[in-house]
């Protein structure tokens, strides 16, 4: 396209900065926003627009860093500007997102054990009912911990977790050990679906240790594999929204 506002030196510079700033944004989102900004400038500026007019239009658009933060932050808070800060933020967000995945595993177990309550094998049903009572408690504690973790990660603090978060973790641990104790003995003779759901639930509780470490630490590359394997596909869309797929 020739003789348009896009050929203006300042516009080209702005778009270059935007591309750089959007490196942490998923490719499809970055492409779409770039097209929208280009269309905006084509509509706002005639081909003969002078330096001052162009500069004013770009100033009104906002800085490329702010735009990229808006695009990458989705509904969350805008991320920090530096590349280091951004990657730190990504890891923490990824860790916080992983907690709902653990909750999903818990709820899966609840659903399956509810189906079982029609089962005539009353001993097993009773056992599952005990577990069923313990799981919502764990769910609640996990949600509380997730919310506090999200606040902690969003505040971009370094160092030890605040007392409220530590307390939430203690509560989660207590609920988790209740579930673990109630789960003992559920295996052969129980519906395979329930056993499998329980298995993944217990594994997720174990993963929680690593998730917590990532919430506190600036980076944890080893977590990448863990997150990929433990986040259900429903959660992955969130993952890519925060740009965690790229290092």
């Amino acid at each position, binding site marked *: 396209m020739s003789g348009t506002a896009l050929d203006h030196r300042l516009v080209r510079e702005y778009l270059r900065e935007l591309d750089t700033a959007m490196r942490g944004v998923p490719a499809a989102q970055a492409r779409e926003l770039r097209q*929208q900004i280009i*269309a*905006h400038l*084509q509509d*706002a500026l005639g081909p003969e627009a002078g330096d001052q007019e162009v500069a004013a239009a770009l100033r009104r*658009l906002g800085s490329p860093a*702010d735009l990229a933060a*808006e695009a990458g932050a989705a509904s969350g808070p805008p991320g920090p500007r530096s590349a280091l800060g951004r990657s730190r933020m990504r890891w923490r967000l990824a860790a916080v997102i992983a907690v709902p995945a653990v909750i999903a595993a818990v709820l899966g177990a609840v659903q399956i054990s509810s189906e079982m309550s029609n089962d005539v094998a009353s001993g097993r049903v009773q056992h599952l009912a005990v577990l069923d009572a313990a799981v919502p408690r764990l769910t609640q504690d996990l949600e509380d911990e997730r919310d506090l973790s999200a606040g902690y990660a969003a505040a971009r603090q370094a160092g030890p977790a605040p007392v409220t978060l530590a307390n939430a973790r203690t509560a989660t641990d207590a609920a988790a050990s209740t579930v673990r104790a109630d789960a003992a003995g559920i295996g052969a003779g129980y519906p395979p679906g329930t056993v499998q759901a329980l298995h993944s639930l217990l594994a997720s509780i174990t993963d929680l240790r690593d998730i917590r470490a990532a919430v506190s630490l600036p980076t944890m590359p080893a977590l990448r594999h863990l997150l990929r394997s433990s986040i259900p596909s429903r959660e992955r869309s969130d993952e890519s929204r925060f740009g965690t797929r790229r290092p």
Partner: protein
Amino acid sequence: MTGEGGLTELRRGVLGPCVLALLELRPRFGLELVRDLAAANGLLTSDGTVYPLLNRLRDAGLVTSQWRDGEGERARRYYSITEAGRQSLTAFRADWAWFSATVGGVLNHTAVRS
């Protein structure tokens, strides 16, 4: 709470419903929407933020977009409100009426015992 910081957060929160309210009247293209929002004095901190917002509203199913050819001009992308968007806007209007009355009552000391 700093004055400007608090205002920025408030703006962020209400911009989505304001976009929906404009699209409720008729579909608009990007710059048109930006100008109409900017005309509501002080609502927009920067023009660019409208686009990530539109994309979020689209992802949430509240807004859709379609390309339209202008007469002799290049095609433009028009954004319009969906049925879910209308419902969301109706719900927000009710929430907002309650919210502004409640906050107003507390701020002006008419709703609290001294």
